[in-house]
């Protein structure tokens, strides 16, 4: 399709002219009306021009939001210090690797026994291509990325209530569903039943498109044959030599059976913009981003500082912290401003002197339950036996899904799966179990999808996010009503105090929300400082 408007100039050229004349905000709106806007508002690192004249900013929390803010403010000439509860950088950006020790709330301690190089990402694991902000920081910090397989046609979709509990390949369910629906629609089209909705002229194109999209034969039927087998797979695939003749697959699933199975639900699971190919993961674990930030900001971050109080006065901000191990040894530091990225679940318990509306906003947002379970197996049987290379299988079992590693394909030795990824009630139930039992249950359930599980299981770790000591939950669950009531109050600058983080964004539960929120917060803060 041509990008040229009738005037002969391209849309992009036109936009550049509008942008040059009227500034970038106008250009953005013009782009929006012309359908060229990307999903993230990230527009390159912030341009913090002007001299902050030695102003100091205390940043609370060394997650993605805190570290983006620290890096940019430092680069703009601010005096920056970051206080972090943990003894590592990254916050929810985190990988658990062999040898790591993790103690959850309540005291249960897990020692990860994965082999060298193997890991699980208990929090974030994928980077949409249109999350330009987090990808740009990864690039600037030298973190290498590789494709994350969201959709694997050879992975399974599974229902305990259908097909005798036997997992089905995604490609078969998808092909059969589209085939049947296309055949149905072709029939009504040919019978002239769409007369009023589709013009005669469009009818031929509609039929042609249905034949292609549905893998129908020349008579618009979804039947065993070359077309359907090319999509869903052959009973005996074509080969070479004497025994080469293919046999088409004959066991097409009937429409009624697919509809009843509910497995069609997983067909669109990977179609939203966040999941459309190509999306990415850092090589070696999501935690690589936080670790790289930590190295970059090594002289700014102070670890093992549990912030318990933030008070501001006319002259500055006083922050009190204690030793996380003892809750003792309180110390106070001061700065001109404070940017707080502590999750609201924790921040709502910290002693603040801020305006009541902002405090109400901080208190208003509940945190979601989520759990991830990493399982190490003695061999990569999903690849060796079942030819599943990366991607995700979906199931109606409590584990929700099984995620296969998107890296190190065909390697000998052990491999680590995401053996369960749950939200809502199932996540709460699993969080309520001791870690060993979460792992045990994940192995039991998973065995219904991969019979190799009991034989090949080695060891595992399980992170229930409501037990994570420094977030008390997975992410802030805003509703439209809560946002209408509180969101703007949360994001205001209150004299010398403001917040940033995933919770101060419209991209909840994504690192891009933390990045864009941090950039917006420091840009506004900088304006205030420069004009003070």
């Amino acid at each position, binding site marked *: 399709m041509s990008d040229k408007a009738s005037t002969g100039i391209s849309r992009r050229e036109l936009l550049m002219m509008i942008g040059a004349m009227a500034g970038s905000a106008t250009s953005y709106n013009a782009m929006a009306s012309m359908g060229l806007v990307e999903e993230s508002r990230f527009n390159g690192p912030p341009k913090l021009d002007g001299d902050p004249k030695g102003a100091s900013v205390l940043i609370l929390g060394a997650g993605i939001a805190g570290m983006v803010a620290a890096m940019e403010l430092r680069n703009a000439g601010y005096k920056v210090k970051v206080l972090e509860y943990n003894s590592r950088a990254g916050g929810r950006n985190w990988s658990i690797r062999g040898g790591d020790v993790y103690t959850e709330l309540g*005291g249960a301690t897990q020692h990860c026994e994965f082999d060298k190089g193997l890991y699980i990402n208990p929090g974030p694991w994928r980077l949409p291509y249109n999350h330009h902000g987090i990808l740009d920081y990864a690039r600037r910090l030298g973190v290498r990325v590789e494709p994350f397989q969201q959709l694997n046609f050879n992975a399974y979709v599974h229902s305990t209530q259908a097909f005798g509990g036997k997992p089905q390949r995604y490609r078969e369910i998808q092909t059969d569903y589209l085939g049947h629906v296309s055949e149905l629609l072709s029939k009504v089209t040919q019978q002239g039943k769409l007369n009023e909705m589709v013009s005669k002229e469009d009818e031929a194109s509609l039929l042609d498109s249905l034949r292609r999209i549905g893998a129908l034969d020349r008579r618009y039927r979804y039947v065993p044959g070359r077309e359907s087998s090319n999509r869903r797979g052959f009973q005996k695939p074509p080969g070479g030599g004497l025994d080469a003749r293919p046999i088409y697959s004959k066991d097409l699933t009937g429409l009624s059976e697919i509809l009843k199975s509910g497995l069609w639900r997983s067909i669109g699971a990977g179609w939203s913009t966040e999941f459309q190919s190509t999306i990415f993961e850092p090589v070696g674990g999501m935690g690589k981003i936080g670790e790289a930030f930590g190295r970059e900001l090594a002289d700014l971050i102070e670890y093992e500082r549990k912030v318990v109080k933030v008070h501001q006065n006319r002259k500055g901000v006083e922050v009190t912290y204690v030793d996380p191990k003892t809750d003792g040894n309180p110390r106070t530091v001061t700065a001109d401003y404070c940017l707080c990225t502590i999750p609201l679940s924790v921040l709502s318990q910290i002693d603040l002197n801020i305006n009541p509306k902002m405090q109400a906003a901080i208190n208003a947002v509940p945190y*979601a339950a989520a759990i991830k379970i990493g399982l190490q197996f003695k061999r990569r049987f999903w690849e060796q036996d079942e030819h599943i290379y990366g991607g995700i299988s979906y199931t109606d079992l409590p584990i929700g899904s099984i995620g296969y590693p998107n890296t190190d394909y065909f390697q000998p030795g052990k491999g680590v799966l995401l053996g369960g990824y749950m939200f809502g009630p199932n996540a709460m139930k699993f969080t309520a179990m001791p870690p060993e039992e979460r792992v045990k249950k994940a192995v039991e359930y998973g065995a219904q999808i991969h019979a190799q599980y009991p034989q090949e299981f080695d060891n595992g770790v399980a992170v229930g996010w409501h037990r994570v000591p420094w977030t008390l939950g997975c992410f802030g669950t805003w509703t439209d009503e809560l946002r209408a009531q509180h969101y703007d109050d949360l994001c205001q600058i209150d004299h010398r105090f403001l917040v940033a983080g995933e919770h101060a964004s419209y991209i909840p539960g994504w690192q891009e929300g933390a990045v864009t929120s941090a950039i917006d917060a420091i840009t506004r803060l900088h304006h205030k400082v420069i004009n003070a």
Partner: protein
Amino acid sequence: MNKMKMQGVVAAVLLSTSAVAMAAEPDAAEGKKVYTTICQGCHMPDAKGAVGAGRYPALANNPKLAAKQYPMMMIVNGSRAMPSFARMLAPDEIAAAVNYVRTHFGNHYPDVLTTAEVKAVLPQKSDYERH
């Protein structure tokens, strides 16, 4: 207090409340189930809560549980980071959980929260949900 005396006290308490306990028995089982499969995820199996960067309050020996409406409203509405369970739990489950924590973990509040009392405070379903 010596051991014999202690056992005597326990026996007396058991005897005096056995009628109530029997009537409430199915409720107690239900309450225990809700507590051990959901509540203890945060409030912990011993109901003593936990402390990290933030904290989960203890329900054990908690005088705030004296008024049954307090834990009921916490569960129905949520509080700060704690989500509302109004949609996830049925009214009888909420009542059972409240009755369970108010009679366990060092709490001894004999008055019972009824399912009807929970129903009365549950939020109306939104138009969207009725579809």
